[in-house]
């Protein structure tokens, strides 16, 4: 299983077309015992059509050419691999940052939405729906909707709309409609539920543009492959800079798309340690309805959420708990099924950084390098500050996004002082 799993992690940029055809056999819906398609029957046909269209298009020269051009000229790829000199000095080792914060929109999210929206357009869909928590994936979806001329509607929890007014305005400015979600806990998980409900009635005209490597097959596979350009570039860049592979690659994990994106470039390099840093929030305990964290790989248990078998946060009866993190992008009670599998087989090492560690990462990187990281990415930086030994001699941290969006959150957290 493992060898097969690892071989399956070639990506669209490598031109390994034959291998690609093998791995996207539509019947391969699982990663070990995780993944699958736990969805209403009404969604089975749309998922099948999507899986077939995607596996056909990703080896289609015209599609690849279009995507590649958009990634270069619209999104700004490749992103740099930057040797963080001061951070390296402080940690007594070489630490590189993969600069996804420099991608158009300020985060890695655009890699995925460009690919999916192109697939949708080729399938003849005229409307995109997306879920968003903090608003980053919603903004990326709105950008691509505007760029490719597709109607875009974004489901967003009422609680999140209140917390992220600026991103709501951004989406509206880009021509998207933001639909408030008033069901359940009125946050990201409910926005995903609502998007899936919409899609069950609208699939003929509509593509559900899922933002992470979670959900039913083919989303975990497709989103990982679309994000794998991060890892492909990083691997080439580190080999050029250092003449060897890194000892470790660290990335923050909410659903897991930036992590799977960069990890996929190194999965076959067994000597490179892959570290998945989850949100430790305000502690490792759980209340009746709300967990104090978002650490599914570390603390979650087997369960089904949003169409996939994975590690989730749940109560003793199977009700899904709300998660918590200062970083909205890590505030999710599930995780991508492939990550659950890779942790189980020992290929990915799970780690935790709590709110405090993330804030430390946020401040230190700003001061040391003149880079304000997203609070999500700051978890990976915070982990490195806390446990540098775990990184080895040469490390890459995936800087998945920039922190401008988080200034209000951090200011509020500090009671208006400090920044």
């Amino acid at each position, binding site marked *: 299983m493992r060898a097969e799993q690892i071989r399956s992690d070639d990506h669209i940029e490598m031109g390994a077309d034959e291998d690609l055809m093998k791995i996207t056999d539509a019947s391969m819906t699982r990663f070990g015992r995780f993944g699958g398609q*736990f969805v209403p029957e009404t969604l089975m046909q749309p998922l099948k059509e999507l899986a077939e269209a995607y596996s056909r298009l990703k080896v289609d020269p015209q599609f690849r050419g279009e995507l590649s051009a958009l990634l270069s000229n619209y999104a700004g790829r490749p992103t740099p691999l930057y040797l963080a000199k001061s951070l390296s000095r402080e940690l007594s080792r070489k630490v590189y940052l993969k600069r996804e914060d420099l991608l158009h929109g300020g985060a890695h999210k655009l890699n995925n939405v460009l690919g999916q929206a192109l697939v949708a357009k080729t399938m003849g869909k005229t409307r995109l729906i997306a879920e968003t928590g903090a608003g980053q994936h919603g903004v990326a979806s709105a950008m691509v909707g505007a760029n490719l001329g597709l109607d875009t509607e974004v489901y967003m929890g009422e609680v999140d709309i209140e917390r992220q007014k600026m991103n709501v305005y951004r989406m509206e400015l880009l021509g998207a409609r933001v639909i408030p979600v008033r*069901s359940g806990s009125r946050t990201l998980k409910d926005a995903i539920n609502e998007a899936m409900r919409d899609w069950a009635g609208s699939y003929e005209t509509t593509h559900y543009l899922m933002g992470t490597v979670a959900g039913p097959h083919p989303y975990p596979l497709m989103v990982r492959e679309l994000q794998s350009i991060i890892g492909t570039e990083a691997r080439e860049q580190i080999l050029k800079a250092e003449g060897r592979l890194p000892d470790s690659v660290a990335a923050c994990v909410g659903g897991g798309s930036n992590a799977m994106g960069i990890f996929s470039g190194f999965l076959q390099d067994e000597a490179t340690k892959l570290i998945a840093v989850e949100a430790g929030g305000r502690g490792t305990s759980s209340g009746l309805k709300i967990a104090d964290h978002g650490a599914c790989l570390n603390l979650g248990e087997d369960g089904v959420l949003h169409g996939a078998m994975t590690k989730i946060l749940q109560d003793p009866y199977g009700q899904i708990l709300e998660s918590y993190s200062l970083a909205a992008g890590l505030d999710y009670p599930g995780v991508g099924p492939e990550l659950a599998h890779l942790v189980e087989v020992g290929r990915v090492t799970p780690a935790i950084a709590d709110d405090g560690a993330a804030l430390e990462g946020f401040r230190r990187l700003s001061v040391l390098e003149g880079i304000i990281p997203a609070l999500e990415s700051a978890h990976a930086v915070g982990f490195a500050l806390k446990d540098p030994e775990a990184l080895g001699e040469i490390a890459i941290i995936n800087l998945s996004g920039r922190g401008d969006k988080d200034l209000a959150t951090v200011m509020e957290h500090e009671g208006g002082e400090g920044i």
Partner: protein
Amino acid sequence: MVELGLPHSDPIADGPVIQAAAMRAIEAGMNTDVYFDVASKIRAQVPLVFMGYYNMILRRGLEKFAGDCADSGITGLIVPDLPPEETGPLRAACEKAEVDLISLVAPNTPPERISYIAEGSSGFLYLVARAGVTGARADLQESTKALIERVKTPLPKAVGFGISTPEQAAEVIRAGADGAIVGSVCVDLISKGDLAGLEDLIRRMKAAILEAVAVEAAGRI
């Protein structure tokens, strides 16, 4: 028969009425233990069918859950987020406990897949009347009647999703269904405390269905 729903925090196949009912029930302390207590208490009066999401079953343990169903008078399970590709383990548990696992067919299920689903189902086959989620709709779509005709199975066919009036119930029976499944409109009446209205609705539904059955039978003679 009565479909007794086990509330879940994330009911992806349900519309606003049943979502809200699930939230209220969970707030009020409903959980899987209470659920089976309730089922045991009403078992003698009416046949029961379980309706609920897979994670709740998985969490209790498939065999324990199926066994608890059998022990509390539940004769079948409807699990809307469990397509046939994923039913293997639960089907084995249901067979062992001798309860039915009822499969669903949707309006967009291709013909060859309908046979595959029907072969794996027991008890009856649940025909989803329309795309989307549960909840009352004013009209019955032509595609629903086409679906009833398209599905060939020795199992009884029951139609649900969007049926809220005696006229709609009679219409699906006339189109060849063996049963009509009515959920949201009942839950809505219960939420308003209108139990007399609920009783009245069910009586009228039953009468309309019996009449449709009689007319159909007479037509055949």
